[in-house]
């Protein structure tokens, strides 16, 4: 049969209408870097596809100390224009140049692990995802977005329209560890936002990618860190707690064994960026 229809809506409203009409039978695609390889290989054979490149959903807006990132803003654009080092580094960590010119901020939320390096940074920034459907809008925190491997809080009739990021209230660090130093699949990715009052940690968000069914927050490690000043003993406990919260897996890139060993190491190195 092949693909019967490819829709290129010119607005969010039009996109949402199409989604309402076709529901789960409509494959939604932004940059195409995740969907098109599967379609080219015949692994995925969607009858109807909607592309969002012309839906006017891209762009970065600064509003009251927040960054409103349009869903289809490309990673290249974010690399240069976001103004937030954490986001810029995370964007740069994805793929090669041409991929970043196509891949989008919202698309990365749907990248199966070990991909999802940008989403990991969004998680550390406690970003809010704006969802839109014909019924209206709602927002959900990135930390509440993932429900399992390749499953999210997104309903069948919803689209991600925007991602809202508050300018972080602390120091940030981003460290992606893979076999290569660029354009590499992740073994472990760490994104940190740590707020201090003097030496004492007041806020802590530890996001980890490549180590579970989706990018995840090390909540118990974060909770432990609050009120402490970071020293080797504290850090050691943070690493242990974070490791307990991960569900590392084996793939072509690294084994579960190796990922497990790298989680504390890479986490420690990311913290070195915060304290160093």
């Amino acid at each position, binding site marked *: 049969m*092949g693909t019967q229809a490819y829709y290129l809506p010119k607005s969010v409203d039009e996109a949402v209408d199409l989604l309402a009409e076709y529901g789960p039978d409509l494959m939604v695609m932004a940059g195409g870097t995740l969907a098109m390889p599967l379609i080219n290989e015949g692994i995925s054979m969607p009858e109807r596809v909607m592309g969002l490149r012309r839906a006017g959903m891209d762009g970065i807006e600064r509003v009251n100390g927040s960054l409103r990132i349009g869903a289809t803003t490309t990673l290249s654009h974010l690399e240069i224009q976001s103004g937030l080092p954490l986001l810029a580094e995370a964007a740069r960590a994805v793929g090669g140049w041409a991929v970043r010119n196509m891949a989008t901020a919202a698309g990365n939320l749907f990248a199966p692990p070990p991909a999802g390096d940008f989403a990991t940074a969004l998680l550390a920034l406690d970003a809010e995802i704006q969802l839109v459907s014909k019924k209206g809008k709602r927002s959900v925190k990135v930390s509440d977005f993932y429900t399992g491997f390749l499953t999210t809080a997104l309903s069948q009739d919803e689209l991600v329209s925007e991602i809202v990021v508050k300018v972080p209230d602390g120091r940030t660090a981003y460290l992606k560890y893979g076999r290569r130093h660029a354009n590499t699949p992740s073994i472990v990715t760490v994104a940190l936002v740590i707020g201090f009052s003097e030496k004492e940690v007041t806020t802590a968000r530890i996001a980890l990618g490549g180590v579970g069914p989706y990018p995840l927050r090390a909540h118990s490690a974060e909770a432990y860190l609050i009120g402490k000043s970071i020293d080797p003993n504290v850090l050691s406990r943070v690493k242990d707690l974070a490791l307990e919260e991960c569900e590392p897996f084996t793939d072509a890139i690294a084994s579960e064994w190796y990922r497990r060993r790298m989680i504390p190491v890479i986490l420690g190195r990311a913290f070195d960026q915060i304290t160093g």
Partner: protein
Amino acid sequence: MLAEKLHVVGQSVARRDGLGHVTGKTVYVDDINFKDMLHLKMVRSPVPHAMVKGIDFTRAERVPGYVRAFTHKDVPKNIYTILCLIGVGPDEEPVLAVDRVLYQGEPIAAIVAETEEAAIEAVSKVNLELEELPAVFDVEEALQPGAPILKPWGANYFIYEGHHCRRVRFGDVEKAFQEADFIVEDKYQTTPIEHAPTETTGCVARPEPDGRITVYTNTQALFFTLDNTALILQIPFQKLHFVGGTVGGGFGGKVDVIVEPIATLAAMRTNRPVKYVFSRQEEMQCSSSRAAWRMYFKDGVMKDGRIIARQITSYSDSGAYNRHSPYAVTKHAANVAGPYRIPNVWIDAYCVYTNRQPASAMRGFGVTPASFAIEMQMDKIAQVVSLDPWAIRFINAYRNGDMKPHRKIVEDATLIEVMQAAAKMVGHELPEKFSRMSSWDGKEN
């Protein structure tokens, strides 16, 4: 060194194909398209070892653009071995599986369709009835009693003139082991590696008005592929015309004669041009790889560093079928003792079948794993006898005039000279006895 004065040999003249490459005008196989061309895609085994109980094309036939399917019944000489051209046998690989598959990705049926998408979709709609069998993946397990037997001759190894393996026997290793000051042993293992050329393997077969078939191909070996194609299809050689010569990277991955026979058959049966180009996934997972080797070394060494005996047992993990592996194992046996003068050598090199995709030729095959093992072993010996890594190699380096374990007199040895040059490059000062040594200094040591 070089005396003769030459004019253009020795000059870095510009590449003949360079302008074509930088302008994109060079024509590669996948750049060839004909208006009425069909596309061929393969139905492949999803499991490493199974009996094929049935194939049902009913749903595939309903895909718009489907033209026809081919199974083993359509291939005149379905069971072949490419090295039959240099006398290697028996035939053992099916072009399309008959009743059994021996590796994940093994071709079972070919489908041609009007478009590539239709061919891909039709392949996805073929129902295979398979009965899975226990598989064997380890070369030594494959040789154990009770292992699933993969070959009609009742064994999981290639038979070399009545022997289980390719043998080299030179001197008396057992006697030398008794005389040696040290015995140095180790096990070395390599892994299956993908050639990964940027251009995948492929061809276009086109029927001509005179009844012949022109095959545009990126094979590394044009006549070799033509000859095998004619033999498999049982057609006169003159019916085929192969055109190629421009390859987007080979590394040994494009000498297997895999795409041409079935594409040519499809072109003959449909009387239309047929393109069969591997997807990247097929290139990675189904096409042949570099063989993984397991090599056991046992060396007898004297206190002064001289190696007086070397015993090697090697296993080539050749995957499910021969391809070029029986040849590679002989090449390995000829080279695995290394560029060193060792008076007693004993080699058993096995070509072993397992349930993985066939191994085949790849840049340096048989020798690349050997060089890895030999040099790791030299390093270990140096530690055992407390010599530096340069000394151990100079002390044992072979000379012109030496006899190698396979009984050929060495003619063009320059191991000593490259080591001297490398030492100079890295600023390592060699003791005079090594810096004055020469590959032509005969038997003295």
